[in-house]
């Protein structure tokens, strides 16, 4: 009797169920090498709304082997992406922004439920994320002019310094700001030609996967961005110690002890390390500030070339 009552009392709770149509729910998988595989471990974990009340989805729980595969994909994509013209990279990134804009309402919903934001705040965050992506797209063919130089050496040589992408960059995305924060750490890494392995926010990974779908439909070559969902504390150490990863962005690591462990592991092959901000993790207010050029510079090498000038 109680069971039948419960059954007739049931109401659908998700958005599209309201019009009486059963929605086809999205499965959230990893994004590696341009494809969407599940974790090779077969594991997943529950993603709930910010207040913990609502089940949102199962996200893949990435394993170290997924991380390994992601690094392989990123390395494979590096020569092509870094070898593309700056113009081409800028166009690709702009197309990403177009796709982001197109999916605005989807992102607003995912950011809102995942971060517990009211609609206007979710919209502001998504708009800021799109605008930031556009801002970074415009840097692709300008950072060299700001960062490079011709050097007036005291001798008959032409001497110039050019910025070059460092290679494969591992990033731990901000835990709270699931789209704006993510875009703020990812765009500066890839606009200059690096490829990325991103560990998404553990508690709010869904916008990251939707972003991966945007990337997959934007002419971004497979492997340039690889996205892992799961537990940063489990995955990040494998990336920090990986000998074929050139740099690691620890922005999303809130625990100072873990950050120290990761930085120590990164020293093994002298990775370039971007430390988490003081106080750890992220603060929503920071992400709306002008990002400046530091995040691009952090993952650029400088190459200086000399050549004699003579007849």
């Amino acid at each position, binding site marked *: 009797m109680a069971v039948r009552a419960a059954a007739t009392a049931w109401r659908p709770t998700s958005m599209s169920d309201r019009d009486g149509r059963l929605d086809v729910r999205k499965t959230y998988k990893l994004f590696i090498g341009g494809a969407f595989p599940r974790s090779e471990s077969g594991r997943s974990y529950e993603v709930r709304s910010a207040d913990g009340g609502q089940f949102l989805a199962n996200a893949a729980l990435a394993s170290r082997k997924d991380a390994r595969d992601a690094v392989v994909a990123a390395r494979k994509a590096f020569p092509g992406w870094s070898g593309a013209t700056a113009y081409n990279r800028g166009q690709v990134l702009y197309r990403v922004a177009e796709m982001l804009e197109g999916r605005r309402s989807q992102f607003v919903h995912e950011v809102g439920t995942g971060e517990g934001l009211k609609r206007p705040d979710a919209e502001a965050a998504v708009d800021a994320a799109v605008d930031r992506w556009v801002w970074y797209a415009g840097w692709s063919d300008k950072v060299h002019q700001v960062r490079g130089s011709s050097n007036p050496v005291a*001798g008959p*040589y032409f001497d110039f310094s050019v910025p070059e992408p460092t290679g494969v960059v591992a990033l731990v995305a901000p835990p709270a700001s699931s789209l704006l924060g993510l875009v703020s750490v990812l765009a500066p890494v890839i606009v200059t030609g690096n490829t990325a392995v991103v560990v998404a926010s553990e508690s709010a990974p869904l916008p990251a996967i939707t972003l991966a779908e945007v990337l997959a439909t934007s002419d971004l070559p497979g492997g340039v961005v690889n996205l892992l969902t799961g537990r940063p504390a489990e995955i990040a150490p494998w990336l920090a110690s990986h000998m074929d990863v050139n740099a690691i962005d620890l922005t999303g690591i809130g625990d100072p002890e873990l950050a120290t462990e990761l930085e120590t592991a990164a020293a093994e092959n002298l990775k370039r390390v971007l430390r988490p901000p003081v106080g750890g993790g992220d603060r929503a207010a920071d992400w709306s500030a002008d990002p400046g050029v530091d995040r691009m510079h952090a993952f650029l090498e400088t190459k200086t070339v000399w050549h004699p000038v*003579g007849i």
Partner: protein
Amino acid sequence: MTVTVPVGLADVTASNDTLRRFLHGLPGVDQVGVEARAAMLATRSIKTTAKAFALDLAIRMVDLTTLEGQDTPGKVRALCAKGRRPDPTDPTCPPVAAICIYGDLVPTAVEALAGSDIHVAAVATAFPSGRAPLDVKLADTKAAVAAGADEIDMVIDRGAFLAGRYLDVYDEIAATKQASGDAHLKVILETGELATYDNVRRASWLAMLAGGDFIKTSTGKVSPAATLPVTLVMLEAARDFRDQTGRQVGVKAAGGIRAAKDAVRYLVVVNEVAGDDWLSPDGFRFGASSLLNDLLMQRQKLATGHYAGPDYFTLD
């Protein structure tokens, strides 16, 4: 030295095309690099016994030169006397290698140098421009040789070289060598007009292939004349030529060398680039006039311990 040459050097002169390809196939010369090496060699510190050795050697390598429209027999006789006994106060001072003059003054020089080992070098082939018909240039040469010159300093046709007519340049040198008979032939490249070190290397090879006994930098009438890096390139060419063919060709640096200090620098370059075998008047010469007095002044300072003055050396 086992350096493999894919084509026998004789075939190289079969046509202008083959000669051009050979010359253009020689390794290039980086200007900044070669000038840096010359500058480094110029910092060698040559003192005491080494300096004494170098000064005496340099004197023995001088081709004491006068090449003026206003030269007279009197001038040439004075120069010959100077060449025989450069330092009137010091009989231990060696004589020069040669007197270098215009062809019509050769008889005067031969008479003035009788009994000495000093060579009589005549410039020929329409020196300094080289612009005259070939038969005129050869007649110039033959006349000098007939008058007693035992060295001929010829000029190459720079116009033909820069226009790429390498075989013409080659043929002229070969013909002049023949017209010189037993006289040694020095081939003046006029490096200042060739302009690039690549050209200097090519012209050096051309002159050596054609039978020159010496390759010489300049007429002294065009600036820049001899420089340390240009001479370095020519010494490298002579070294490489001997490696490939077994024949040693000498190098003469002429024009613009006035200070003993510079002459010593040239000898350092000869020493470290070509080696011992070029450290004699048969391997290297200085074409100079005022250089001799500076060499004598430095020589005297080494001997006496105090600085010398120009009044103690003759101006001829």
